[in-house]
């Protein structure tokens, strides 16, 4: 008989042959006392060492452990996305595979989620990383992300998060977007909570991320911000941007006409240039409207996503109280 799974723990692994065994035991030790029916999803992200062999060996002795093996290295976000797509639990926990997150925080986070939230985000308040290359850039990034997206999360980079599966499963989730999940979900009105979690210094292996992330985070942030603000009404957004060159065009034409004679050519050229840009941008607005209509994801659907689980949640609570 197939039993319902309450909790899925998703862990992306990339070259973690030393950590994988410890990780598995730590998760089992933390989740077993909760008395839930759970599964563990190890996602092997194209590791070049013996991670896959070690994980497979563990899976041989535990039916609750699934190992999702990638054909090649795709990165942390796709690995998490794959784990989430394959997971069957009602709640999903994501965490790093390098033992820096502590699985013993899971019961506390699940308890927090059950207070009625859709996501519970970990905050590594006592972070054990290098100050210059990790902590300071991350602090600036978090401030910036909070300001731009309007979702004040203190630690977006922390992988340890707990979600309701129905909220998470339909979220567009690619590139290095895992950092922006709370921001993405906030559009749909999801309720989130941030709790302090433990953080350990790296025991094995090397950190896989360096300073080069900064520029990527900036561009991703720009993308997220634009998608989120464009999403409701692409036409309006593009039209308001197209207004700027339109106004410039009128200024130029007025200037050229008033000073008619010596600089008519330059003035009219500038006016035409700005005018054509304005038309071009407005055209792009129509194009994005078309894309949004034909695409499979739009903000309207995102909103439905979170409104549904909440009513579902209430419904479940209701039916549970009937049983007791």
């Amino acid at each position, binding site marked *: 008989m197939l039993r319902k799974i309450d909790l899925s723990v998703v862990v992306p692994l990339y070259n973690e042959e030393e950590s994988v065994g410890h990780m598995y035991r730590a998760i089992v030790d933390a989740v077993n006392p909760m008395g839930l*029916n759970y599964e563990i999803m190890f996602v092997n992200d194209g590791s070049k060492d013996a991670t896959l062999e070690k994980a497979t060996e563990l899976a041989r002795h535990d039916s609750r452990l699934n190992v999702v093996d990638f054909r090649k290295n795709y990165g942390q976000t*796709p690995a998490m996305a794959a784990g989430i797509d394959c997971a069957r639990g009602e709640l999903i926990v994501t965490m790093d595979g390098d033992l820096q997150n502590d699985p013993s925080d899971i019961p506390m986070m699940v308890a927090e989620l059950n207070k009625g939230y859709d996501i519970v985000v970990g905050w590594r308040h006592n972070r054990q990383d290098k100050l210059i290359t990790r902590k300071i850039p991350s602090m600036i990034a978090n401030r910036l992300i909070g300001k731009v997206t309007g979702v004040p999360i203190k630690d977006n980079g922390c992988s340890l998060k707990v979600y309701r599966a129905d909220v998470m499963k339909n979220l567009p989730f690619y590139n290095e977007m895992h950092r922006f999940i709370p921001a993405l979900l906030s559009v749909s009105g999801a309720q989130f909570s941030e709790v302090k979690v433990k953080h350990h210094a790296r025991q094995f292996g090397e950190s896989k991320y360096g300073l080069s992330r900064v520029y990527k985070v900036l*561009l991703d942030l720009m993308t997220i911000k634009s998608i989120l603000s464009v999403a409701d009404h692409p036409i309006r957004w593009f039209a308001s941007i197209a207004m700027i060159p339109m106004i410039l065009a009128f200024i130029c034409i007025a200037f050229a006409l008033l000073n008619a004679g010596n600089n008519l050519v330059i003035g009219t050229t500038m006016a035409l240039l700005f005018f054509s840009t304005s038309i071009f941008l407005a055209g792009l607005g129509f194009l994005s409207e078309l894309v949004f209509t034909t695409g499979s994801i739009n903000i309207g659907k995102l909103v439905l996503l979170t409104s549904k689980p909440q009513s579902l949640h209430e419904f479940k609570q209701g039916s549970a109280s009937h049983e007791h």
Partner: protein
Amino acid sequence: MSTKQLQASLSVIIPACVRAGSTVAMYKEYKDFLSTFVSNLQFIIVVSIRTQKLIGAELEQMSENDPNLSLLVMSRDFGEATAIKAGSSQATGEFILILPPYKQVDTTAIPKLFDFVDDYDIVLAKRWPRVDSQSNQVQSKLFNYLLRKFSKQSYSDIGCSVRLMRATVMQELNIYGDQNRFMPLFAHEIGFRCKEVEIPQAIMDSKTRIHNPGTYTRRLLDLLTVVFLTKFNKKPLRFFGLIGSASILTGMLGLFYLAFERLVLSVPLADRPLLVLFSLFFVLGLQLLAIGLVGEIVVFTHAGKNKEYRIREVINFPDAGGASKE
């Protein structure tokens, strides 16, 4: 030359879209040779409406008498990649071998490809040693050099059509038009392992070819498309954003300089063509950024069905112990 017998079944696809004149002769040559060491052999010849007039009748007659030869006629000339993709839908073998309808490599050396199928998913032939003219070789080298520079993947003869692959590769590969050349790049992108193997070039392939300018332009466009599709298909803004912000920055710096000259040095501004140039840079950058953004919207709205990752397998032992006791 390898003499071992291939146990697995093999489907041979011959896309007879261009230079199809000798298709029938080549089919006979391939068949006679391959059947000596492959027991389970299937041939699929794809002809387009254009080449059908040339060779269709003869092939049709042959396929009627031979159950292992299927003939596919495309109602229009959709390009070689589409032909291969269509042919692969008929393939029943565990491996697919793509062969050109003209003599490109030494047929007797083809079995060399089979030595690598255990460790790789796609085995490509590389024409070496080459016997054709300097001009051909220079063209080919230049193209492959550009490809290596842009794609950061190392292939030295992407123009050779002889390719052996597992059937699963063809199922997952989504190629169309004239992208057949770039098949290994797409395959690598979705996680298949590729290997180049040297196969001597056929004397018949040594004819000097000078194409018309349109062909070269198309090749270059194809190349850029492929690089864009494989590297930036999930992050168009990284591509457009870089060029766009460079252009905006140039424009802004130039405009600031002009403003400085006008305000401080009192150089008249309204009659300077430089003003138009820098404004043009600025406006162009803005447009590129906006296009990148539309690209991101396309990716975002289709992210649900286009998964970024490819899973080899999900390992789980349902009968293993340790299931929670409750």
